[in-house]
Structure formats: C-alpha cells, structure tokens
C-alpha cells in the first residue's frame, strides 16, 4: 500500500497560498465540490424558472403572450436537459462525489487533483455554451431533451440551426468534464482508500457514487458519439440518422440513415443515466437514514450487491424507452423482462431502508425528514415504473403525462429529496455551522407535500390519455373540461414548490454567517468524514497521519457500548466483543 506511505507525509502537500489558488484555481476536492455544487444549483434554478413558465402555459392557456409554441418547446427542452445533466449529474457526482469520496475513503484528496480542477472548469464551459444558446438566432433547441433526429436538425423545430449545435457541443464538453472527474473518482475509490478501508467497509454513499461513476464512464461515450454523428448530419451532410425525407415540401439530400439508431444510442446512455442519478442518491440516503435512526443500515451486503446489480442491469434495459418507437416489436419481450427484473433489487433496497427504521431510535431531524420523504416518493415513482416497463401497459401510457409524472417522481423529486437531505446532513461539516432548523422543516413540508400535489394528479392526466409536450390541448372528444382545472391546480402547486425553494436558498446563505457554530460530528455519525481534526476539514483533510479503519460504517447502538455510535477509525474494544456476538460483522 504504497500510496498510504506517501499520503502520510503531509509536508508533501503544497498548501495553496494565494486567494486564487485557494478558491479559484483550486485543486482541493472540497473547493472543487463547492464550485461544482454552486454552479449546478445556479443552472438548476434557471431550469426551475423554465418549468414555472411551462406550467403557466399549461395551467392557464391563452393567457401569456410571450409563451408561444416555439418558446414553450424551448422551455421544455432546456428544463429537461439542464435538470438531468447539468444539475443532477453534476451536483451528485461533481458536487457530492468530489466532497465525500476522499473524506469517506480516508484520502487526502483525489488522486489527480489537477485533472479534478480541470474537470470543473470544463464543466463550467459546457454550462456557458448551453446558456449561450438562449442568446443566439432562433434560440435554444426545442427538440425535447431526447433531441430525436430528424426533427432536431430540421426546420419546423425551434432552434434547429444554432440551438441544436450549441446543445450538442455543450454535451460533448460536459462529457469531457465528466470523464476527467469520473476517472478520478473511480481511481480514488480503488487506489486511495486508507488502511483498513476494505471495499465491504465503505459507506453506501461511496458504493453508490462509485457505481454511478462507472456507469457514467461506460454510458456517456454513447451520447458523445451520437452527438458527434448528429452534428455531422447537420453540418457535413452525412446521413447517420437521416433517411430520405421531404422536409416542409423540400426533398433533402439525405438518404439511408436511421432515426431509430439514434434512439438506441441515446437510451443506451439515457437509461444508465437514470441510475447515474439514482445510485448516489440511494447511497447517500442509506447513510442519512442509518445515522439519524441510530441504527445500522439493514442488510448492508445485500444493499451493496443491489447497487451493483442495478448498475449492471441498467445497461440491458434501454429499449424500454422505445417500445412504441417502431423498432422490431419482438424486442419488447426481452426489454420488458429485464426491466421488471430490475424491480427486484430496487425493491430490496426499499425494504432495507424501512427495515433500517424498524427498531431504530428515530431522530426526525431535517435531513431525516427529507430521507423519509424520499422513501415515499421513490416508492411511488418506482411502482409506476412497473406500469411503463411492462411493454403492454406502455401502449396506452407512453408519451402521456403518466410518463412525465413517473419520471419526475423517480428521478426528479426523489433524487432532489436526497440532495436536500444530503445538503442539510453535511452542511455542518462543510461550513462548521448549523442551518436554521425551523426554516429547514418549512422547506421540507412545502417541497414534500407540494411535489406530491403536482405529480399524483398528473398520473391521472396520463391515464386519461393527455399527450405530453403539447403546447395546448385544444378540444378533443375524450378529454373532459375538468382536466383543465386539474392542470391549473398542478400549476399552482408547482409555483408554490418553486417559490418555497427560496426558503432553502435563504437558509443556506444566511446560516453561513449566522448559523449556530456547531460541535464536531453533531449527528453522531460513524463514517470518516466526520472524524477529521478540523471542521470544516482543512486542505489535505487529515492531520499528520491518515486515519486507520477498524470497522464498517454502521456501528450504531452496538450492544455493550455506552455511546450509541462507534466511528470507523475506533479500534474494536473488549466490551463490544463481549456485549454482542454480532459486533464485528463486516
């Protein structure tokens, strides 16, 4: 374990001296994490505003002059893409991955700090290119976040010219950033764990982030090649995705390409992407639940294997997004089967979370409220996935609001509940101060109840058959007038939820200066990040010597030990060995 020997020499660290090297061109994983997080939250707010505009049109059609079909589709597209890639992926991996991996593994930093810094700046560039598309002729692309060709690059779709090119360029840049960050995360987890931190002693947070990063490294290349191929179709006149067609009355030169090929490539990335977002959330929520229930996570080994199994399976389910795409219909049998199989490890995770609460000693802190909210929303979203994953049921429900409601529950609301849980949970570590609890609780109630008021009814619009991505429903024979009042109520809930995020922003910013200074490890957590010498941890994380790990991350309420938690770096004592025969499990 050569790396430990080097890492144990803190004089090798080259502490940054100037403001610029400390906070701007910083190579410290914690600063980079905050940079990633801040940028991601900023673009997330842009996407939140876009969703509000979109909802205004849907809830109150014929009211707002500045929302025309063109602008509406641009709002839809940019909202979706920003939320999935530039907020969730960036915040979960670039933000929390960066912050937590070295600390939880007991490393001084990422193994390639310079590349880590570069990763953030390249990510920032991708965000700038993305946002620039709002200011180019024709505006951003309105092809939907799936960017399906042929329409994405043809007249008749908003932003078919500049918008789509900037989008593809931005995605390509993002993937470069992700790859630099991702290689770092994987290498750090595999190579830089401290003494005693075996893989099966790693907190589930690290397992989730690690597996998600591996998925990302395998999945993003599919998006990269499809972006490059589409760009060639658009700019160089190739026909990767473009068959012979007549666009708005004009016979174009394209011939022989396949739009369905793009969908296969897109979803080969797109489905693992769901788990790139979900797995870190699964991991973090496990640790939040265990800590605040003062109980070990139930079935740790099963949880690890479930994460790995879900990650593996996520690569062979992609075409469940394409049951009605015109691909060979016999694929439906295979993909429906693999998709429903994924429900088994996922259900196990849910069972183990609630069994972690069982016989715990539950503190309903703000992070815990969000974690429990997550179990509720994720159960709901996961169960509706069983409808859409089952090829036959996808027939009536595909491309309706049921799909919108489902994926917002499962990969919108749920990971965001975990992100909030995580931000509140690790806030004392990152800032050395406690957030305002009353505001945190208010934020939880607005967010939790508000999002359910948005998405539960939305499923019923889907049952009814209301199509998604419609600027206005107009009149049909089968959609009753009352659907419009449902839409209006969804919009009102959405605006309330959107506005209530100001409580969160205020709390996070206000508490930076005014929050109560908190003691070290205020939650009584066991994992290494709370055991640093300083709070917030200094550059290099650990003092003169790296911690040594003696146990798994879940020694809460160990029988025979007075304190109700034992940090991972505490040696096994005599009393716990006599106190409970199950003491040293992992």
């Amino acid at each position, binding site marked *: 374990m050569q790396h430990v020997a080097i890492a144990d020499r803190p004089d090798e660290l080259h502490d940054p001296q100037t403001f610029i090297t400390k906070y701007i061109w910083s190579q410290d994983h914690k600063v980079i994490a905050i940079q990633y997080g801040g940028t991601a939250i900023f673009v997330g707010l842009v996407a939140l505003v876009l969703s509000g505009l979109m909802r205004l049109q849907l809830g109150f059609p014929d009211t707002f002059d500045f929302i025309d079909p063109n602008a509406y589709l641009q709002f839809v597209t940019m909202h979706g893409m920003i939320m999935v890639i530039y907020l969730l992926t960036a915040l979960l991996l670039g933000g929390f991955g960066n912050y937590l991996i070295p600390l939880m593994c007991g490393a001084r930093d990422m193994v390639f700090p310079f590349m880590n810094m570069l990763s953030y700046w390249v990510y920032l560039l991708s965000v700038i290119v993305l946002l620039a598309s709002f200011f180019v002729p024709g505006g951003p692309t309105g092809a939907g976040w799936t960017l399906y060709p042929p329409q994405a690059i043809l007249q*008749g779709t908003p932003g078919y010219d500049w918008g789509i090119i900037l989008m593809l360029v931005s995605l390509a840049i993002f993937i470069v950033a992700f790859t630099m960050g991702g290689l770092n995360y994987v290498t750090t987890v595999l190579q830089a764990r401290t003494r005693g931190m075996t893989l099966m002693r790693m907190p589930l947070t690290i397992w989730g982030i690690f597996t998600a990063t591996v998925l990302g490294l395998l999945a993003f290349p599919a998006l990269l090649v499809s972006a490059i191929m589409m760009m060639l179709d658009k700019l160089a006149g190739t026909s990767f995705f473009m068959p012979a067609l*007549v666009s708005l009355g004009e016979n174009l030169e394209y011939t022989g390409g396949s739009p369905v090929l793009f969908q296969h490539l897109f979803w080969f990335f797109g489905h693992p992407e769901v788990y790139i977002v979900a797995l870190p959330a699964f991991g973090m929520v496990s640790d939040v639940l265990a800590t605040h229930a003062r109980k070990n996570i139930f079935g740790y080994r099963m949880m690890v294997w479930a994460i790995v199994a879900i990650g593996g399976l996520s690569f062979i389910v992609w075409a469940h997004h394409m049951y*009605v795409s015109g691909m060979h219909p016999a694929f439906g049998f295979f993909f429906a089967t693999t998709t429903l199989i994924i429900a088994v490890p996922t259900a196990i995770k849910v069972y183990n979370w609630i069994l972690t609460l069982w016989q715990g*000693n539950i503190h309903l802190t703000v992070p815990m409220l969000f974690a429990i909210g997550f179990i509720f929303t994720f159960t709901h979203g996961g169960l509706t996935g069983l409808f859409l994953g*089952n090829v036959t049921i996808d027939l009536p429900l595909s491309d*309706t609001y049921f799909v919108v409601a489902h994926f917002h529950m499962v990969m919108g609301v749920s990971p965001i509940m975990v992100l909030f849980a995580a931000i509140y949970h690790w806030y004392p570590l990152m800032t050395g101060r406690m957030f305002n609890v009353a505001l945190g609780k208010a934020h939880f109630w607005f967010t939790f109840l508000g999002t359910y008021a948005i998405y539960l009814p939305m499923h*019923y619009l889907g049952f009814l058959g209301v*199509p998604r991505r419609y600027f206005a429903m107009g009149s049909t024979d089968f959609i009753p007038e009352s659907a419009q009042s449902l839409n209006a109520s969804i919009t009102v809930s959405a605006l309330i939820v959107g506005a209530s995020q100001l409580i969160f922003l205020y709390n996070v910013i206000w508490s930076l200066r005014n929050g109560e200074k908190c003691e070290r490890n205020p939650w009584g957590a066991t994992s290494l990040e709370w055991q640093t010498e300083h709070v917030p941890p200094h550059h290099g994380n650990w003092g003169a010597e790296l911690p040594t790990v003696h146990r798994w991350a879940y020694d809460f309420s160990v029988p025979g030990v007075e304190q109700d938690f034992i940090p991972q770096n505490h040696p096994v004592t005599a009393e716990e060995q006599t106190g409970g025969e199950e003491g040293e499990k992992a």
Partner: protein
Amino acid sequence: MKLVIVLVLLVVGSFVFHWLSPWWFTPLASNWSTVDTTVDITLYITAFVFFAVNIFMAYAIYRYRFNAKRRAHYEPENKKLETWLTVITAIGVAAMLAPGLIVWADFIDVPEDADVVEVVGQQWQWSFRFPGEDGKLGEVDARYIGPENPFGMSPDDPAGSDDVLVSSNELHLPVDRPVKVNMRSKDVLHNFAVPQFRVKMDMVPGLVSYVWFTPTRTGKFDILCMELCGIGHYAMRGSVVVNEEEDFNAWLAQQPTWGQLQGRGPADTVAGKASYAVCGSCHGQSGEGNAAMNAPSLAGQSAWYVERQLNYYRQGIRGAHEKDTYGQQMVGMAQTLPDDAAVRNVSAYIATFTPHKVDSTLDGDPARGKAHYTTCGACHGASAQGNYALQAPRLAGQEDWYLKRQLQNFREGVRGSHEADSYGHQMVLMARSLQNEQSINDLLAYLNTL
C-alpha cells in the same frame, strides 16, 4: 408525529383520489380489453405494495420515534427475512410481467384476415392509403414525393394505380373488422395514437411500423400525434370514423384512386376566366381585392388553396357559422359554380394573377411581430409565400384587415370549428398563441414588410 399522520393521510388520500377521480381511461372502442386487464393487475399489485411499504414505514416512525431511554436494536442482517422478501417480490413481479408478455405476443401477431390501411404522417397532417381492389399497396419512395404526388407513389409499380388515396385528416374504418395499420412518415418522427383503441406507434421516416386492432363500436375518435414533431405537434390532429360496413364502403368509393388522380387533365383557365366575371365584381378584375366590399386580395394565391376554400364554402364547412357574415355571402357566391370542374378551373385562373404590394391599414410594431411570426413561418414560410406540402396558404400580399378578421375568427371559433375543417382547426389552436389585438396588429405589420 406530524410526519406519521401526514404519511398515513397521503396514503389514504391517494386511494381516495383514485376512487373519486373522474379522470381515467376513456371507454374502450377496440378489441384490446386485455391491455386494460393488464393495467388493472399491475394497479392492484402496486397499490398493495404502496400501501404496505408506507404504512409500515409510518408505523415504524411512530413506534421507534426518539426516546432517550431506549437504544436501537443492533441487527446487521437477517438472511431469512431478506430471502423471503426477495422471493415474494419476484413472484409479484412475475405476476405483473406474465400477462404483459402474453398480451404483447397477441399485439405483434396480426391476424391473417386483417384489412390493411396505411397511415402517412407529415408535419403536421395525416393522410391515408387503402390498397384498392388488388389488396396490395403500391410501392412508395420519399424520392417521388412532390406537389403532384404527395404520397410518393412509384411510377413503376402497377399495383399502386388502384390504391385509394385519402388526402384528409379523417380516416374511415369498418366496425368489427381487424385492421393492420402500416405507418410511415414523410419527414420526421410522428406517432399514431387513438386513445380509445389503446394503440400507439411511432411513424418513422425510412421504415414502416405497424399496429393492429379491431374497432368494436362506431363513432368518431381523435387521432393524436404523440411524438414531438416540431412547432405544430400539438395541432397535428386527425380522426378515425368507425362506420358500419356499408357506410364505410360508400365513403371509400368516393375517394379517388392514384390512377384517377393521374388521369385528370390540366385545369381550363379559359373557362375559369369566364366564371371569374362574377367574382371580379367584388375581388377586382385582377384579384386585387376591395376593402370597401370586404373582399380580400386573391392575387398570388395558389390554385389548391382557392379550390379548397371554394369547396368548403360550397359544402357548408366555411361560412356556415352564424357570426361569419362575410363568409355567408361567399357561400351563396360559391354555389353559383356548378361543379367540381368549374371550381378547379376558376381556381386555376385566379392563380394566374400577379401578386402586388398592399398598403397597411393597421398600427403595429413589425419588430415585435417578427417574433410572433416565428411560429407562423414554420408552415407559411419565412417570406409568407405559403407551402403546399403543409397546406399553408400564401399570406404575403394579403390585406391586413382581412387577415386580422380571419385570425379573430379562428380565435373565436367562427372559422375552423367545423369538424370537417381540420386545417382550420389547426389555425384555431395556432391563433390562440396571439393573446390580444396588439399582438395581431404587430404580426400583421411584420407581414406587410414581406
């Protein structure tokens, strides 16, 4: 404690919402009741799990809420319990999957006696093709598509000449006969969906996809495009009319075959000129229009559009609304044309007029109007020249007072609300994005600059 109550209320509330909800699948009109059954099975199983998981969680939070005197139980794992839960979950999943796969096997296996109809999608319209007497759809290719051959029929395939071509957004089908719907697209992705039939499939340029179903009751059902296909996606509507067999046959017999359409000679502009004498008294001898008579300019308009509008007037599709006073005048005038040939001839004559510049009569801001026109231009063309492929008429050179009245008519449903006027219906949806009179004036001010 609050949380426990809220969780229980949310679970109970979800069930109550479900039971009270008037929003559910529209009544079935096809053979696919098995699809609904599959949905029901999944609904029952998932509802049970939703209830069990959340109520268990709520109980756990209540029972094991923080108590300084108590300690959590230390139990890293419980192999037996975990195995049981895995097995039960697997059984539940299998119970949902199996019916799904069985129904899917039916769904992709088309009965041998199914009739065939082809649905063709394009931005943002539907058209349909029946195989004709030989029961075979003729070959098609995107390369052949043009104004004279919107279906792209191959000139070399004799099987195509008896194909029945329906250039309208309305498809008729006979009741109780299984039908295989072949789908293709001329331009981008579309999706053929009829909620009452529970079927849905993307239409992809370059390949033919299909679904099959048997309509089980007569009536008119919406066809919706359910794959984002550009700005007009939401306005891409059509309908399926399910008829009794003889009504269907009567309708089908009225539709032209490809052979018949090819056999038509060119329109007779000399005869058209003679008929135009009546029109000219209001619209002007060279179609320049006359504001005092409320007669719009005709110069520059394409024959196909004039022909369609005249036919609409003759059939009571346009000008039938009680508030459309000027349209009502045109109904009478259009009926002086004796037959389809006369309509076609006069339309062809009108198309020979040269367009001219018009004066603006409205006060609007062309710069703001330009932004509004982005949406319009997708169909009507960047310079408002009109586009046959999208069935969008020329707007350039038209009087602004006339366009304003038409936009207002569309907004108010005075025009375009007749159920046979599917293109007009599109404009009803589109005109709604102009929220007030000023937006309309701005838009028209921009049009006057083109």
